């Protein structure tokens, strides 16, 4: 639901980029879009996946992850958790982190590393 809302509010190019893989998005990210102001700041964890998998926000936005699975998950920055690292999130637990600087931040679940997501701050 959140992903659909964000896509509807996006310019076409950005919406197309969101549907592509992460590297492709990174290339397109150099083009100016109005993604930041309208994107949601919540990421839902459901069925072993982060949704939306790619979230674009403005600098200073607080992103909150909410675990809806019966399985615990973590939100761990791809640098091994140096930048941000949640504790184990049990069902309905939440974790927040505020992104101050522009950049592309990849993260994963340290318990299920095939679960990956990206926050784009610009």
């Amino acid at each position, binding site marked *: 639901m959140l992903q659909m809302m964000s896509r509807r509010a996006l310019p076409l190019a950005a919406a197309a980029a969101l549907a592509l893989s992460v590297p492709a998005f990174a290339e397109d990210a150099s083009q100016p879009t109005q993604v930041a102001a309208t994107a949601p700041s919540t990421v839902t964890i459901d069925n072993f*996946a982060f949704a939306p998998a790619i979230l674009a926000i403005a600098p200073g936005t607080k992103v909150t992850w909410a675990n809806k699975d019966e399985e615990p998950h973590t939100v761990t920055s791809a640098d091994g958790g140096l930048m941000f690292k949640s504790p184990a999130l049990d069902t309905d637990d939440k974790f927040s982190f505020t992104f101050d600087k522009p950049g592309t931040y990849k993260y994963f679940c340290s318990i299920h590393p095939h679960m990956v997501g990206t926050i784009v701050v610009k």
Partner: protein
Amino acid sequence: MSTRRDLLKCMSWAGAGIVWSVAGGVPRAVNLGGSALAAPAGGFSFVQISDSHIGFKADANPDPNGTLQLALDKIAALPQKPAMMVHTGDVTHLSKPEQFDTADQIIKSAKLDTHYVPGEHDVIGDDGKMFFDRFGGKAAAPGGWYSFDQGGVHFVALINVLGFSPQTGATLGKDQLEWLEGDLKGKTASTPIVVLAHIPLWSIYPQWGWVTPDADQAFAYMKRFGSVTVLNGHIHQVVQKVEGQVTFQTAMSTAFPQPEAGTAPSPGPMKVPADKLKSVLGIRDVDYVPMAGLKLSDQTLA
């Protein structure tokens, strides 16, 4: 390590109730719900439990303490008292101190010498410090892996739940592989090897992280051994494969089942009717008979 077709050919699913009889010339029986036979003289038996997930409280099993106790009761009732027990990880659900304490108390009540390897649920947030403080192997290497000998069998306890990175997931890593090569060096090729690790050491379903990508290197070091038995947990169901002299076996959980590979949107806990739960949880009894090898018997808690 093998093609997908080979894998399928050599796999049998517990859910299908298949009895595994002969593979690669080595007879092995899996008795789902059957009873154990006493090991002939000269050998010994041990038991494997796995994935007790103490602290789990969702619908799939509101009482993992109770089902772990039930598993230990089942072990206590075996006709032959096991020489020891192995726990192949996910002792706790969330790596919390009180979960480790509860698990420790319940498992201690079995009064069995117990050897552990951690699951990814045991090392959340502290790289396993709490786990290793309580359950670490005697004379373990700095990385936590260790080996020991019992009754002529060489046991190797490996760790593949630390240092996950995005996408790659479980690996043994260079340090551990080097250690393994050295550890096996002095052993004669006729020494039976039993390998313990949490995540399967062969590719069952990479999409769900049921794989250890660098395990092939570990098995390259074991090629010269006549009998290698790999005991894993993680996937909460019995899946088996025989490849040459290596037999791979995953075990049932004592807490809750998980879906067969690819049959659900995710590998999350599978809810079964309350009166069916015990029939999808279980223990494994392993008999070792010198010259004849290891005989594995998976038994449900029903």
